[in-house]
């Protein structure tokens, strides 16, 4: 505590640094409407407690590993959605674009002697293809100025047509490539799981320490050391806890590790790079961003490429899980689940507010509800109704907090 006080620049008063002051400030911004991921965390706890009280199988390790694999695809797609929503745009094509990636991978790895590709090559090509789809759609939005809603609605129809056309009469293409299939069906051994948790914790500690040292070197307010330590301990507990739990059953799924890596990478992009800063700026006030010399057009196009690429990766995860693609690839509730996940997780539909982690939090809610209702033996009718109600609640909260933020300003 004393060390930290020495490092405080004289611009900010030392009183601001105590735990009490931090809590008070958090509470104030909370009241002003800046709620962040708090509501979804609370909601998640309530949902978990409810289902556990109804059915004690809900918290078993088997169900837990299931849940992680179930939600991997939607979470991946939702990461792309978060970026699009940060701009205040929408991408309705992600469902069938993910299907396109599945078809590309299936066709490329299909052993018919023509141009059989290795699994990893097929996946890379699929993601490039979907990124290019994003580039194409984003160009209409950013250069010509067609509303993204319509461009991607057209994409929704078009890419569905392309999927039906390319799968054709076969109805289904089986994926034989073991690497592709392992994406959703491989589980780490117990030791490997713990090793991963250890490495992740180590990296997190290193990053936190580097951050603290860098701030101290510049003589500005560092985070409260108590909070830093709490964060480190919390991270380690979650990492090792999750691996321990998964190890009781099949082990930690590789698909979920992929999701974590993607979350960390895109969080870094959104919050630590100039590109991410510019995405928030364009979403908050595009005119201000333009005057500040930011190339708004390129930012928009690039975000749609991210959306396409992440939809593609999600599509690979889905295809891998089924070991095949069929005429329904990319259909069903994928699109709505992904958008709902980002919104439920706390990303604003109005642009400029939200975090990449909300993709995980939101799809955790959706997957938990779906999984719990299945366990209780209710029909999917109930599932839809409950998910719909939660989405409505999340959007309402977003609109209310936006109004409060506006009132708090000025």
């Amino acid at each position, binding site marked *: 505590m004393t060390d930290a006080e020495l490092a405080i*620049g004289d*611009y*900010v008063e030392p009183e*601001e640094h105590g735990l009490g002051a931090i809590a008070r*400030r958090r509470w104030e*911004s909370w009241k*002003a409407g*800046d709620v962040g991921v708090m509501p979804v965390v609370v909601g998640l706890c309530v949902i978990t407690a409810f289902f556990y009280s109804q059915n004690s199988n809900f918290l078993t390790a088997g169900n837990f590993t299931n849940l992680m694999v179930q939600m991997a695809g939607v979470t991946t797609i939702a990461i792309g959605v978060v970026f699009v929503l940060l701009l205040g745009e929408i991408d309705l094509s992600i469902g069938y674009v993910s299907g396109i990636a599945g078809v590309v991978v299936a066709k490329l790895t299909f052993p018919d002697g023509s141009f059989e590709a290795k699994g990893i090559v097929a996946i890379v090509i699929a993601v490039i293809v979907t990124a290019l789809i994003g580039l194409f759609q984003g160009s209409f939005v950013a250069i010509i100025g067609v509303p993204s809603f319509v461009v991607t609605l057209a994409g929704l129809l078009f890419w569905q047509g392309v999927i039906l056309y390319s799968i054709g009469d076969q109805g289904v293409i089986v994926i034989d490539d073991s690497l592709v299939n392992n994406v959703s069906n491989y589980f780490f051994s117990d030791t490997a799981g713990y090793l991963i948790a250890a490495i992740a914790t180590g990296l997190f500690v290193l990053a936190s320490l580097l951050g603290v040292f*860098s*701030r101290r*070197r*510049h*003589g*500005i307010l560092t985070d409260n050391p108590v909070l830093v330590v709490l964060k480190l301990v919390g991270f380690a507990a979650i990492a090792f806890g999750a691996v321990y739990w998964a190890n009781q059953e099949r082990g930690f799924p590789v698909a979920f590790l992929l999701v974590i890596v993607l979350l960390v990478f895109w969080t870094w992009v959104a919050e*630590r*790079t*100039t*590109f991410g*800063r*510019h995405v*928030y*700026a364009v*979403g*908050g*006030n595009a*005119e*201000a*961003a333009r*005057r*500040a*010399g*930011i190339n708004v057009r390129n930012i928009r196009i690039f975000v749609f490429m991210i959306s396409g690429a992440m939809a593609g990766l999600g599509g690979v995860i889905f295809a891998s899980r089924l070991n095949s693609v069929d005429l329904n690839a990319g259909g069903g509730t994928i699109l709505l689940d992904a958008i709902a996940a980002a919104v439920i997780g706390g990303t604003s539909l109005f642009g*400029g*507010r939200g975090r990449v982690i909300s993709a995980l939090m939101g799809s955790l809610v959706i997957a938990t509800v779906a999984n719990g209702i299945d366990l209780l033996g209710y029909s999917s009718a109930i599932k839809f109704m409950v998910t719909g109600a939660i989405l409505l609640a999340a959007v309402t909260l977003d609109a209310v907090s936006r109004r409060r*933020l*506006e009132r*708090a*300003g*000025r």
Partner: protein
Amino acid sequence: MASPSPAGVVTPRLETRGVSKSFGSVLALDDVDFEVRAGEVMALVGDNGAGKSTLIKCIAGIYAMDEGEVYSNGEKVTIHGPKDASRLGIEVVYQDLALCDNLDVVQNMYLGRETHDILFRLKEPEMEARTGEVLKGLSVTSIRSIRQQVASLSGGQRQSVAIGRAVMWNSRIVILDEPTAALGVAQTRQVLDLVRRLAEQGLAVVLISHNLHDIFEAADRITVLRLGRNAAIFERSQTTQQEVVHAITAGIPTKVSGIDHTDTDAPA
């Protein structure tokens, strides 16, 4: 004024001579001269449609002038776009501020000019430290935390952030478009004090305002435009509000195209 400055007169930091600009058949600026010196606040006033905004946008490189010359410290320069203007150290704070509400003070101060390393990683600590220094240098102390979202700031604080951003980049000429238009009494006071401090730090400040009270409080000299032409230039200390109002509403052009004119610094 078309002749070289006589000895003993300060060379203006920025000077325009004979600026004309028309939009279709509308002549928005007709042979306008304007100057601002280092360390002074030059007010630019005029009724709606007098050409204030057009002149500023020409100087800022947003509009291309049809005719006219620009001199920076006595040297002839050309302004073809906003980049040229910022290279000359010209920064404009527009009326609508152009701040991003969803970003914090530091992020807004560095918007579009973030410092980063080769991996495009932001150097947050460096930016935060420098933002603190700049605001402190301008005696902007009412902002509780520079990590607070701009949405939660008051109008005066937002104006201070916008001005801070403008002066942060080694700018030498700051143009403020109606900085007090939406502010209450106390906040207007804050912003006018800030405007004075900018001039005291050696910047050339152009203050556009409708509010004569503010102008008489903060400005050293006053340029009046009327219907796209120069109407008068006053020394603040040697004029009255009535005189300025008269120039704004009924001022006679100090020079008329086609007629040879002598040095017509305003009646004082």
